[in-house]
């Protein structure tokens, strides 16, 4: 699956539009960033708009993961789990909305997720502690680049659908 580079261009009236380019995989992130900068400058010579954002989407290979081949008959994207976490900066938080939540993992009589069960605990452990990949630590962060420290709230959180 190719890499997708998206350029968001805004006009003088404040309206935005996107231009997308597919690139072959097999290059590293700095190379894709270098391409995006060069192509962005080519676009600016041809466009009278302003580029307000560039995103580079690199597909990841999940063949090494154990993933069910078919969604369960109980699966519904409107049935979500909400996890709320503190970060390294006091007063800043991160939220995770996860669709098709397995409802059997709630505490009986409440909408709180039973975080002592193995499956919720394993997911929360990754959110709190990150993953060590070949000696390099990959941590989960909030939108301000602060490390997530602990998940203090976990709830069933359905969304309106239909």
């Amino acid at each position, binding site marked *: 699956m190719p890499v997708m580079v998206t350029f968001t261009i805004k006009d003088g009236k404040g309206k935005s539009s996107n231009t997308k380019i597919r690139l072959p995989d097999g290059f590293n992130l700095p190379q894709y960033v270098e391409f995006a900068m060069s192509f962005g400058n080519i676009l600016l010579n041809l466009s*009278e708009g302003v580029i307000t954002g560039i995103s580079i989407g690199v597909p990841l290979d999940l063949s090494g993961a154990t993933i069910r081949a078919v969604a369960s008959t*109980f699966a519904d994207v409107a049935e979500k789990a909400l996890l709320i976490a503190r970060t390294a900066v006091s007063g800043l938080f991160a939220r995770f909305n996860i669709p*098709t939540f397995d409802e059997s993992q709630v505490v009986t009589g409440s909408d709180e997720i039973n975080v002592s069960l193995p499956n919720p605990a394993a997911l929360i452990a990754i959110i709190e502690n990150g993953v060590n990949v070949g000696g390099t630590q990959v941590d989960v962060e909030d939108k301000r680049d602060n490390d997530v420290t602990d998940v203090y709230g976990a709830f069933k959180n359905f969304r309106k659908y239909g």
Partner: protein
Amino acid sequence: MSQTIVFTIADRSGTEAETSVRVTSGLNVNHYQGFAVAFANALNNFIYGKILRAVCYVFPTLAGLVGNVATSSSDVEHVGKFEFLTASGERVKCNIPCLAEAAILAYDSDDLNQAEPEVAALIAAMETGIAVFGGTISPCDAGGSDIVDTIFAREAFRNSGSRR
């Protein structure tokens, strides 16, 4: 800015939804891939749905762009439409909003002047790629086949919609 990994999950009806995780920036793809596999394993056991894909999104700084300012007359509805042919015979479309008037061939035509340096530069980038440190990256179609030719380059206008 942190990297974002987005997991797409499907339910029993095939409806898709996403969940995203922001992770440490500045690492290489292999690190994000390792994280994604570990997270997907834990996620799969937490949900009923099927994880379809994971994509790592990078948002580079715009500091390297030159002359990145919109003119007051620019309009996203005025586009340059490009269509390219790939080695596998597929077509790739590329639309450039806020088209600069200087790119147009003549005012009795909607063709873009492919000899105009700015137009030629875009076509060259699409057909032969852009050199980066350690290689050349050439745009492609959804199947990964390289672009080999330009079918057309023309001016077009999008519908502004009705005003209430």
